[in-house]
């Protein structure tokens, strides 16, 4: 069985190794692999802006998502038994992006609900998407879409903590709060990693939404790495694209490794 299994992994890997190799190829000038491209890319102002924005976005939304969904998951698992209700939570992730965009426009544009509720006079509201609150709108959209998923995973995790330990905790006199912190959380480690990873991947996918709402050149604050890559591709600057991608990858790799190390150690 092992050889067959290895065969499968090789088949999976091939497309990807090829891609990796490719991206390195493209980074090299004709003969000597030099770092010229990297220098250009790092110096590029648009790149820096995009990196800053992406960092900002990921840095805020992922922790927010993890923590919020954990709280909600705990609440649901303790007080609700009906799993059908939970189906509702996952709904957001199933929506096609274009409809989602329309929905956001009804809420956030100058003529949208938010302005109405905030009592602005007609026609004088703020176009939230193009203002300095753009980032907030984006984070809201991301949370809204992905939280459902995280909640479900957390619930699965919480449920997997064996009942006996919890009973033991109760007996020992710990109250709900303490039970939560000292028993459940340590057991959720791998779920935590999974959710963070999922969140990371999905946060990079938010590009599609921004693109549909704001086009190729959105407000400065929400100009993400992927906008840059997309526009570089349009202008055929594939070498920059690859260099940028490798840099992004390197960052992510280090971040993930650090994560792993910190949390596996515990």
């Amino acid at each position, binding site marked *: 069985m092992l050889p067959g299994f290895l065969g*499968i992994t090789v088949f999976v890997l091939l497309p990807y190794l090829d891609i990796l190799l490719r991206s390195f190829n493209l980074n090299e000038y004709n003969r000597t692999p030099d770092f010229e491209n990297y220098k250009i890319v790092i110096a590029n102002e648009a790149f820096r802006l995009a990196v800053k924005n992406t960092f900002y976005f990921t840095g805020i939304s992922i922790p927010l998502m993890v923590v919020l969904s954990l709280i909600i998951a705990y609440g649901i698992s303790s007080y609700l038994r009906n799993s059908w209700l939970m189906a509702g939570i996952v709904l957001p992730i199933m929506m096609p992006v274009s409809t989602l965009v329309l929905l956001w426009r009804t809420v956030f544009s100058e003529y949208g609900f938010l302005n109405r509720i905030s009592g602005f006079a007609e026609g004088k509201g703020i176009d939230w998407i193009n203002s300095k609150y753009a980032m907030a709108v984006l984070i809201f959209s991301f949370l809204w879409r992905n939280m459902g998923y995280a909640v479900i995973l957390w619930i699965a995790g919480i449920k997997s903590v064996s009942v006996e330990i919890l009973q033991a905790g109760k007996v020992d006199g710990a109250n709900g709060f303490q039970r939560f912190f000292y028993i459940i959380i340590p057991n959720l480690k791998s779920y935590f990693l999974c959710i963070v990873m999922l969140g990371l991947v999905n946060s990079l996918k938010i590009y599609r939404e921004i693109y549909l709402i704001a086009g190729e050149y959105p407000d400065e604050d929400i100009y993400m790495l992927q906008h840059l890559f997309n526009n570089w591709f349009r202008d055929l600057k594939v070498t920059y694209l690859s260099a940028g991608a490798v840099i992004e990858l390197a960052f992510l790799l280090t971040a993930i490794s650090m994560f792993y190390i910190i949390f596996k150690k515990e």
Partner: protein
Amino acid sequence: MKKKVICAFIFILILIMCYPVVFLLTGSFMGENELNEKIGILFNIGEKRYVTWSLLPDHPNVWSFIKILLDSPEFFVAFWNTIKIAIIALALQCAVNLPSAWGLAIYNFPGRKILLKLYLVLWILPFQILMLPQYIILDKLSLLDTIWAVVLPMVFSPQFVLILYYFFSKIPGSVFDAARLEGANEMSVFIHVGIPLCKPGFLAAGVLSIVECFNVIEQPILFLKTKELWPLSIYLPNARLEKIGENFVAAVINVIPVILLYLYGICCTDNEYIR
């Protein structure tokens, strides 16, 4: 008291989450005039006033439904294309990725950690970067402009493997040892013990994968040239007001299979959740 508050809070949360689907449904039943009135301003039509919406349409009509279901053959072709892609992708993923996840989780072989890290890394690469190399590879394999051009990259995406890996690794090893002691060989352990236990994980990964299939946009545009092969996600064009009613309906039809599948999945794993 505390419980009630929390329950209420959760209810509200769920309502907020569900709102878009309600939005979709009401929208699909509205006639064009009503849509113009309510959200026309987003398209620079009508006077400048606030967008309005109601929970139920004022004048419900099924005009948009009729137009799409009866009048647009392309819609059906696109719809079935999407279904085809989803089913084939899911089937292949089971065949290929389940064993991989199993192997990664259970067996300790040299290079395992590296492989894992590699999968993680590959998962994160956004499509913009992969686009070109994948195109070239597909071209060399002559798979461009066939359904496989969309299915294969999806099947071999690490997402499925990794989620299942997490679930498999949760299962305490003792269960497997017990099975092995009883004389089962590796294959039976996998089929009779592993698969049943991973149902929630399978549900999770499966739903994500199907959502992906229904939302895939860039790949078909690049890899599929003939329009007959295009899936539904491309058929939902950028929302333009003239076609917005149809857009809503198409979106509804896009969402419903996914929801149904998910509910079905919950049914199957219901016993696991409720304790």
